[in-house]
């Protein structure tokens, strides 16, 4: 039904012009501010470090290799923290869905 579709398109355009509907991609109740972004990134790094340290400590306790896995997973935790921050700003599914760059 071309008529209905064109009406829907015009309605959407009119609603966007009036500010009734925000265009997709700008969801969220408030625009992110610098402090919020910084806090989120900080939390991501700290939690990845905690997860890495916890996992390393647990593996060390199980295998009796204290402190080597603990130290190794400290590094993995740091890398995972950077990865988390990277994913915070470049969500994975955008790269996968558009298929305009090689994976990885």
């Amino acid at each position, binding site marked *: 039904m071309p008529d209905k579709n064109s009406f829907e398109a015009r309605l959407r355009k009119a609603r966007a012009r009036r500010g009734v509907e925000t265009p997709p991609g700008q*969801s*969220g*109740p*408030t625009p992110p501010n610098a402090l919020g972004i910084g*806090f*989120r990134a900080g*939390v*991501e790094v*700290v*939690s*990845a470090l*905690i*997860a*890495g340290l*916890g*996992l390393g400590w647990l593996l060390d306790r199980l295998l009796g290799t204290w402190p080597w896995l603990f130290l190794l*997973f400290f590094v*993995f*935790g740091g*890398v*995972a*923290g950077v*990865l*988390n921050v990277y994913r915070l700003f470049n969500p*994975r*599914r955008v790269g*996968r869905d558009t298929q305009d760059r*090689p*994976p*990885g």
Partner: protein
Amino acid sequence: MAVEGKTIDALSQFELKTVLGPIGEAVGFTQSTAHMALAAGLITLLVMFGMASRAVVPGRLQSLTESAYEFVHGIVTAQVGDEGKRFFPFVFTLFMFVLFGNMLGLLPYAFTYTSHIAVTFTLAAIVFVLITVVALALHGKKFFGYFFPEGAPLWLAPIIIPVEVVSYLSRPISLSIRLFANMVAGHVMLKVFATFIVLLGGLGAVGPFVAVLPLTVNVALVGFEILVAFLQAYVFAILTSIYLHDAVHLH
């Protein structure tokens, strides 16, 4: 309580105390648990009484219930897609529980149960277990491919796999720390500025005029805290939905 010997005591508001006298003491029923029960009761009452009339043109309570419902429904369908509708009750419960915890904590004499990491981490752990079980149930062994993206060189596996595992395990931790840290920081700031009002107010004749400054700050902070309370519940719900999307679609 806030001012003891002219020092700022901002952290005593987070101490757990038992309520309901000797019975509460015997079973460890704290004011935190009482507020959780109160929040659960209020949410149930809101939904029950809000939807009792089922009017075509909703009244105030019904519109509140419907807008909460549609807000969470929008989050879930936008993030997870149509498959996410079966997780809507879970996300709605989580969102309302966190929202009521944050909002109730702003009332005078109330306790903020979301300011305890034990509570927020329990909520985040439930989310973590759910997303892992959903991913395993839907994808079986393919779930483990999540930790090694296809197309990456094989010799990088010893680095990529531990990093991805740690990154996956950090999800409940970041989810819980974010909520807990925001609530603690907000309430400490409120208490510190409230103490300033009392301390400055006692400075002789000029005191009450100077004390207006921290009072102004506190009024602004209360407004800001209402925003944070809503925003953190929203963030908790949307991150749960994003994780559910990852679990359902697994890229």
